């Protein structure tokens, strides 16, 4: 059993060796979490495990049993209102995405970073976000959006 975005989801024994990423995408059919490298190198698959950013491709289902998993689809539910999460809002205001493929992972990392450190400085943002690659090169805007989300919450 895991808690996936607030829903209790059964995990059959046969799937214990599966990566959390494959489970999310191919069994729970939530496609917002992305595969980028499969080796913990790019951050595209970032989800929250009990509130902390983790790479879903590097976790097996047996390691996450009984834990709370939040994916990009569940991010907005972490806020009080029924709107978007502040990082999602800031991402839109700063028009961060180009192709967008890396962005769910960037957002999940950013949200976890801000819940740990609500007022990060530039160096904190760079260090906190460093595991997430953006091939399109939107880094400057990502940093601006994280700073904006921090300011506006």
């Amino acid at each position, binding site marked *: 059993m895991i808690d996936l975005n607030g829903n209790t989801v059964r995990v059959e024994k046969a799937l214990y060796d599966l990566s959390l990423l494959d489970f999310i995408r191919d069994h729970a059919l939530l496609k917002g979490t992305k595969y980028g490298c*499969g080796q913990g190198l790019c951050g595209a698959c970032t989800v929250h495990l009990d509130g902390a950013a983790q790479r879903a491709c590097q976790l097996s289902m047996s390691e996450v049993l009984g834990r709370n998993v939040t994916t990009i*689809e569940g991010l907005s539910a972490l806020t009080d209102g029924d709107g978007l999460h502040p990082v*999602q809002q800031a991402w839109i205001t700063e*028009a961060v995405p180009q192709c967008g493929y890396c*962005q769910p992972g960037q957002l999940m990392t950013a949200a976890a970073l801000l819940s740990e450190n609500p007022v990060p400085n530039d160096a904190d943002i760079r260090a906190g976000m460093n595991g997430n690659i953006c091939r*399109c*090169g*939107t880094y400057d*805007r990502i940093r601006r959006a994280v700073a904006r989300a921090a300011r506006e919450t």
Partner: protein
Amino acid sequence: MENIVRNISIDRRKFLINSGWLAAGLTVLTSCKGVFAVLPTTANPEIEDGLSWVQLMPDGRIRFLCPRMEMGQGAPLGLSQIVAEELNLEQSQIECVSPASNQSPPFKMTVGSESIALFSEPVSRGAANLREHLRQQAARETALPIGQLKDATGGFDAVGRFIGYGELVPAEVTLLMPEQNDTVAQYFYTRAEARRIVGKSWRSPDLENIVTGKTIYSRDVSLPGMLYGDVIRPPRFDATLVDAKDIGAEAMPGVEAVVIDTSNSLLGVVAKSPLLLADALKRIEPVWRFGNSTASADELEVTRYRARDDFEHTLVDEGNSAANDVISVRSVSANYTTSYMAHAAMEPRAAVAWVTEENVKIWCGCQDPYFIRGRIAALLERDEEEVVVHPLRMGGGFGGRILSQPAEEAALLSARVGRPVGVQWDRETEFQHNYFQPKFSHAIDSGLDAKGKIAYWRHDFVSSPIIFGLVPRGLAPILDTFIADKGTARGARMPYQVGQQRVRYSDIRTEVPTGAWRGLGAAPNTFAIESMMDELAFAIGEDPLTFRLAHLAGAGGHMEPLATVLRRVGDVSGWGRSTPKNRGRGVACAIYKGQTHVAVVADVAIDHGERQVKVLRLWCVQNCGLVVNPDQVENQVLGNLMWGCGMALEEKLTISDGIANERNFDGYNILRHNEAPEAVIKLVKTARAKPLAVGEAAFAPAVAAIANAAFAASGKRPRALPFDYDSLYA
């Protein structure tokens, strides 16, 4: 102007019906042109093409069937703004969709930074024609003279009464066929100083889907009853499948089919779950044949070709070419190299194919859906009309998705099982089995006269075909004999006034598959040219920016736009101020595709403690003509600048034993957050100009500016890219 055509041909009606056009509605359209099946779709759009892309829907909203594929460059948004400018629409009144291949006549592949530059005109004309037709209709319905129907948002103001486009929708499907050479006012041009929507930073309607994870990329397509396929891919570039033996794959529970197809060199399995694929593939034993007659990648060394004085193409030969006569008081010679590079888009490619007796359906992100359609039709020996490609947003393109190999693999597998089959490349496959940016090897000899002006410039280089990199093996020898690859030479014609100039090159096909990559030859060629300009300036103790300006003067002032961006980047960056020890500024400039003028200044620091070269900041001034959406353009420039950092300091693919060595982001480095400098981007405002190339323009000068800044910081000249602290101080 009476231009409604009611007797439309079956052919044209078909596109309409396919795009959901069943009852009422109005569209404008004309010619559809044929394309060759096996070559990418390259015909430039005709003005009339725009007419088939703009539709008035029964609810009064405008649907724009965008003839450009979205891969993050934002062209559909910019073109939507042009449609909205012509039709006086709010953003909510326009819906932009990516047409399936049976919903629009073929359009040119999405490449070369030309989506806005080349398509703004036909799109604007199509929309303007629709608007004027609707104005006539409104005049008829109100019995007012046409001059009394004034533009209003989403319709017309008929002397105080608002008539929305929705009220003007005809009762039956109607096509509009404007006269040749009509004179309809295109607001995109005529409102030059008073545009309402063009020039504003509309936000893409896709943003919300992206940040909530709802956007569908090729990997995210799942159809009911879909199976999963994977393929054993060749262990080397030169391997051909000869035979294969199933040693237990088909017998595995959950495996639906094993496909051994030597005629297409395809060896694959289809299974109920993606999790079975890796095991199943291990139970097939392929037999490969190795070797073909192409050259080895090691041969791409300019010194070899210079030794034989053997270059296939002469790009420029101007001035007195009796080289020895040229008087120079100071000569400088240097060789420069750049590496093989991968696209490394964040989304490893994927596709779903569903082959049935009636038709073939393909879902994939691709830069040229009509090319994919043609290739798959040929592969399956089907009529092109039976193949429909549904293009999806790409998780990065960069020239790497002219082909969709997984679509072809999935099609062959689905043809066997008759059910939808998804094929998803993993990162390793993405790095090893696509085509690459070729490496470049340059040699430049130059000399200065007594006044510090360049007396002669002799530039030779060797690389591989890029535009013609993807032609079928059988065709390659003929093409290579007769055609100089313009992609390989992009950016090799330098902009400066010199006494005498000769540029020669060879585009040698090797074992390594090469093809389009962001900017084609522009970044490698600009790196060589702008490094040599720097070397010359330093040779005589001249300021590199002043030295460049001195060589852009004269010649009827046609280099003034480049001089302007250079001067401005000097101003915004505070060029000329002294820098602390181990810090340096470098400048470079270039004209992209003969149209977009860009200058970049880089600020680089050498950290001896950490043994690192760090780009601290980049300033970029770009004149890309009319800017349709400033925010989108700035985001593209930002991406280009980051690519400049990556190419200068990180990216290198190496080949050994006939295959790429790098398999993931631990071997092939791309820029990360902590290495990404701040960027200051300024666009030159030119309301009356046409929009020009953006998507690849700023990349090339960024690379060179960083290399030049590293020299200024360290006194060591990086002549081989990528470079790092260790190579600089080796």
